[in-house]
């Protein structure tokens, strides 16, 4: 790969990391419209169903499902990795609910945000990331991640809901467990992208594991009949939860491209800037810190600044040619183990076409798109906006900013890699 191509892919991956942060954080907005009395497990299940719809329809819209079939033919073992990652996501997400309930957001959020430090560890240990990177890049990535962790702690303390903590030890274990699950979940991610799989194909199978695990957990914990009654009773709110899931998928898609092009050691911390965006929505649109003391605002300003500086340090520490050649060694190892064609692996790493496939949509693609749109439209007709004080001006401004990021990053992805 030429040095120019490497630089443009690194810049693209970093851009995707920032776009991921905006959309993952924005996904919290529709969920804030939902009645807090609804069971957390049910909230998670409906969100995951929205995620499922988006993860089957968005890839069909962007490139068509024929590319998914091509990826599976080349690297069928990656279905196992994707489903495994989906199962991990669902368990981690459920653990965070228990963590927040037991120790509050202020303690839980920074604890599970340690996933980026674990991601750096796995990236270094298993996939040759940061090998031959030099001390400046080590300092940039590790220092940036620690800086972001400090910023996340300040922000979480400032935005805590001050719930009385109970069963503290269990809550801390739950938060740490979620961080370990999410940090380790990036092993399958990296494995898939080193072998050349397209992120659009990976997420299609990821969501099968996610929905299956979440359905089993919801039925086991709530019981099938109470769960159904709760869903029927909350039908006017289902749209907002599914919309949250849909928005989350767009963020996750950018996160997947970031992981592919800059690795997990840089991709995860960058997408963890979602906490900043979540806070912007909370403060500006939902008036969450109204009437708070000056010290709280100081914590928010300090935490945001620390997170931004950490993200900047990581963004400026992109991989050198020497480090990238170590990634190629790891990719070659994967290709040999699973019998994946060398050219397919190289094409995937370089973000170019492996073989000329049909780019037109099939009837199945249109059926998937129409089905997902139909479900969302039907729930949208039933939806009611709860009586919440919303600053619509800020909501529009943040939505425009997110759409601008989506469009610019989407165009950059299309021009540089054709969404590969």
């Amino acid at each position, binding site marked *: 790969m030429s040095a120019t191509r490497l630089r443009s892919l690194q810049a693209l991956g970093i851009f995707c990391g920032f776009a991921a942060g905006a959309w993952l954080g924005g996904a919290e907005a529709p969920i804030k419209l939902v009645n807090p009395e609804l069971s957390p497990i049910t909230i998670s299940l409906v969100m995951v169903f929205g995620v499922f719809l988006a993860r089957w329809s968005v890839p069909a819209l962007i490139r068509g499902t024929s590319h998914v079939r091509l990826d599976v033919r*080349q690297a*069928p*073992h990656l279905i*196992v*990795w994707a489903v*495994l*990652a989906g*199962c*991990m996501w669902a*368990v*981690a997400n*459920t*653990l965070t609910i*228990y963590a927040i309930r037991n120790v509050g957001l202020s303690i839980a959020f920074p604890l599970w945000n340690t996933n980026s430090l674990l991601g750096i560890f*796995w990236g270094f240990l*298993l996939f040759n990331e940061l090998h031959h990177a030099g001390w400046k890049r080590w300092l940039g990535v590790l220092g940036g991640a620690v800086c972001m962790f400090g910023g996340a702690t300040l922000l979480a303390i400032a935005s805590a809901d001050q719930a009385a903590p109970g069963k503290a030890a*269990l809550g801390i*274990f*739950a938060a740490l*467990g979620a961080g*370990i*699950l999410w940090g*380790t*979940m990036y*092993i*399958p991610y990296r*494995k898939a992208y080193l072998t050349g799989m397209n992120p659009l194909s990976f997420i299609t199978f990821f969501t099968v594991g996610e929905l299956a695990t979440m359905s089993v*957990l919801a039925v086991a*914990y709530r019981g099938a009949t109470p769960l159904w009654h709760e869903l029927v009773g909350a039908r006017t709110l289902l749209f907002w939860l599914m919309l949250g899931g849909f928005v989350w998928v767009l963020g996750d898609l950018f996160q997947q491209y970031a992981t592919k092009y800059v690795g997990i050691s840089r991709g995860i911390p960058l997408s963890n800037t979602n906490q900043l965006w979540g806070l912007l929505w909370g403060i500006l649109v939902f008036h969450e810190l109204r009437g708070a003391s000056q010290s709280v605002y100081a914590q928010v300003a300090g935490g945001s600044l620390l997170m931004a500086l950490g993200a900047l340090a990581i963004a400026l520490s992109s991989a050198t040619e020497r480090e990238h050649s170590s990634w190629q060694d790891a990719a070659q190892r994967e290709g040999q*183990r*699973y*019998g*994946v*064609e060398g050219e397919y692996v190289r094409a995937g790493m370089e973000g170019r076409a492996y073989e000329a496939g049909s780019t037109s949509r099939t009837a199945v693609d249109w059926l998937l798109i129409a089905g997902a749109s139909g479900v969302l439209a039907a729930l949208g007709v039933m939806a009611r906006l709860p009586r919440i004080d919303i600053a619509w001006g800020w909501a529009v401004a943040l939505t425009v900013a997110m759409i601008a990021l989506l469009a610019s990053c989407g165009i950059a992805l299309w021009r540089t890699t054709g969404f590969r």
Partner: protein
Amino acid sequence: MSPSTTNSPRHLFRAIATDIHFWIPLSVLVGGLLLLDKLR
């Protein structure tokens, strides 16, 4: 080995089962499920 041979289910099963990268996330997943069960 050609891809058609190496992509056979038997080969894939062996490749995955002997890959430490598979057992790390799987162990973490099992640990997460056990923790979740304790928290219920």
